[in-house]
């Protein structure tokens, strides 16, 4: 058919075979598919806007100094979230103090010290598993172990019990964040340290950690912001919903009953009166401001230090 020596020998001819590129149809399908993916992407954005709009339009008018500085009350107009806000700050501090050193330490051990053996693999699989355990199960653990068995130390469903439960909950997140940050530090830095005779711990402390700490802090803050929003495990360990005092600023304060922002919000949402729903919306605004501040700090920290990386 063709005398052109460069043509493929005896392949079925495009005109005589059934092959139809049908490019118009395929490109149309392509555009439709791309359109769908854009819709899907903006669904999340749209819902976030609706959620924020709904909460702000319901609750902004209720926000006042009186609301922030009052204890809960049976009368919606007099109720406030002082004890819940202070309780959440207490919880945040206890959780941070417990989970940060333990999580970072465990991350350093697994990434820098641990030999690659069966034992280490068990720990790794276990951490992956723990991250998928529902938070309410941690609440059951806290209820049984911290709140009941360790009652003489923790004082029952106290700030300490809540903090320990939340610390266990976010530990896997901090460990994973620590390991990822350590892995991102180039190996040449370690080798340089060993070459001048430093021990492993000296290398980690003086060379690796300063490089990895921004990533670790970012991961920790994100994990803590998750802890601040957690409700289910706190309700399960037996945290109260109505607290009309503040824990004293002492070690005994750790053993007192507490409530937290999400619990207070849940309490208000679950009441039938619309006035309490308004309180809940105002409480949500306070909670979201706290969370957004934490998240923004984490993201800024990440962006700031990513530039100065070796």
């Amino acid at each position: 058919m063709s005398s052109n020596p460069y043509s493929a020998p005896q392949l079925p001819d495009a005109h005589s075979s059934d092959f139809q590129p049908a490019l118009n149809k395929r490109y149309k399908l392509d555009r439709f598919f791309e359109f769908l993916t854009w819709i899907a992407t903006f669904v999340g954005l749209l819902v976030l806007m609706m959620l924020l709009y709904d909460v702000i339009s319901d609750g902004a008018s209720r926000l006042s100094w009186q609301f922030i500085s009052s204890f809960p009350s049976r009368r919606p107009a007099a109720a406030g979230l002082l004890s819940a806000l202070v309780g959440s700050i207490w919880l945040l501090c206890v959780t941070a103090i417990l989970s940060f050193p333990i999580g970072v330490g465990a991350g350093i051990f697994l990434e820098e010290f641990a030999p690659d053996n069966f034992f280490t693999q068990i720990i790794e699989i276990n951490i992956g598993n723990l991250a998928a355990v529902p938070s309410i199960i941690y609440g059951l653990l806290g209820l049984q172990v911290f709140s009941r068995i360790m009652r003489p130390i923790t004082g029952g469903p106290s700030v300490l019990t809540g903090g320990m439960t939340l610390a266990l909950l976010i530990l896997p997140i901090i460990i994973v964040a620590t390991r990822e940050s350590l892995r991102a530090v180039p190996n040449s830095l370690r080798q340089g340290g060993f070459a001048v005779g430093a021990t492993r711990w000296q290398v980690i402390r003086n060379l690796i950690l300063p490089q990895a700490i921004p990533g670790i802090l970012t991961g920790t803050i994100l994990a803590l912001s998750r802890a601040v929003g957690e409700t289910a495990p706190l309700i399960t360990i037996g945290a109260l919903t109505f607290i009309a005092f503040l824990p004293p600023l002492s070690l005994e304060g750790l053993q007192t009953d507490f409530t937290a922002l999400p619990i207070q919000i849940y309490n208000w949402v679950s009441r039938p009166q619309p006035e309490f729903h308004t309180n809940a919306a105002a409480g949500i605004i306070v909670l979201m401001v706290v969370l957004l501040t934490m998240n923004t700090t984490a993201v800024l920290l990440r962006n700031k230090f990513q530039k100065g990386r070796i």
Partner: protein
Amino acid sequence: MNSHSSLARSQNAELWQPKRNLSKWSEQAVKYIFATFALISVATTLGIVFTLIFETFEFFQEVSIFRFLTETQWTPLFTNAKFGIWVLVSATLMTSFIAVFVALPVGLLAAICLSEYASPGLRRWLKPILEILAGVPSVVYGYFALLFVTPILQSFIPGLKTFNALSAGLVMGISILPLVASLSEDAIYAVPQSLRQGSYALGTTKRETITGVVLPAALSGIVASFVLSVSRAVGETMIVTVAAGANPTLTLDPRVPVQTMTAFIVQVSLGDAPATSLAFKTIFAVGMMLFLMTFILNVFSFWFVRRFQEKYE
């Protein structure tokens, strides 16, 4: 004389050893302390498993496992107590199914968009927004479901009750969407560019490359993200507690109130049940069921990733 002594000193190896006893000792101390910290995660798992097994065992001393698995009503707090766990399991499965029905397709499409279609500049904006969506506490989603979504749905779905599985499930889907999107996006993004180029070279369009080459290559990561989000939906507590009600009924109608496993645990915890009561043990039996469900999902995901993971150099 002076130079001679320094030469002697340099030849005396003992003097050249830096004092490393202290640093070697602290090295060992740090290592063991950190190893203990790593063991805390194992202790947590053991604590969870033993707590659940112990209390569940106590529970089955009083209620036979046969009743637990065959009864069709769930009324553990009534005098005529019935312990049909399937009532709670079916409610959990129904809300989770609705959630997954929303989150998986939308999340996957969003992941494709972020990885394949969005420009890097847009990506930088969209990913933090997804992170914010992921960071919204579940009690806030519960508020949104009960007081925003339900009234809207009620305006065009007849017979929709104030508490219902539908709006709880839909909002739960939105709450796990960012998880699906960001984990799937990681998997899709990790597919090497050469595979796409190879596909284009065969004359495929972009969509054909994505659905025919990129998605199959990222399958293990995508499935892992799906499974993780299903187990999130199963264990999600506050959305269903606030918006789906506390009415244990064995039904497939998403318009009426139901009670999920997690909502039951919350209900009993709020009721201040004494530690020796049967109700108290019941929440551990329900917790055990919940833990088993998420554990099986987890094992499946682990096996799937091992089996189907594609390794590219």
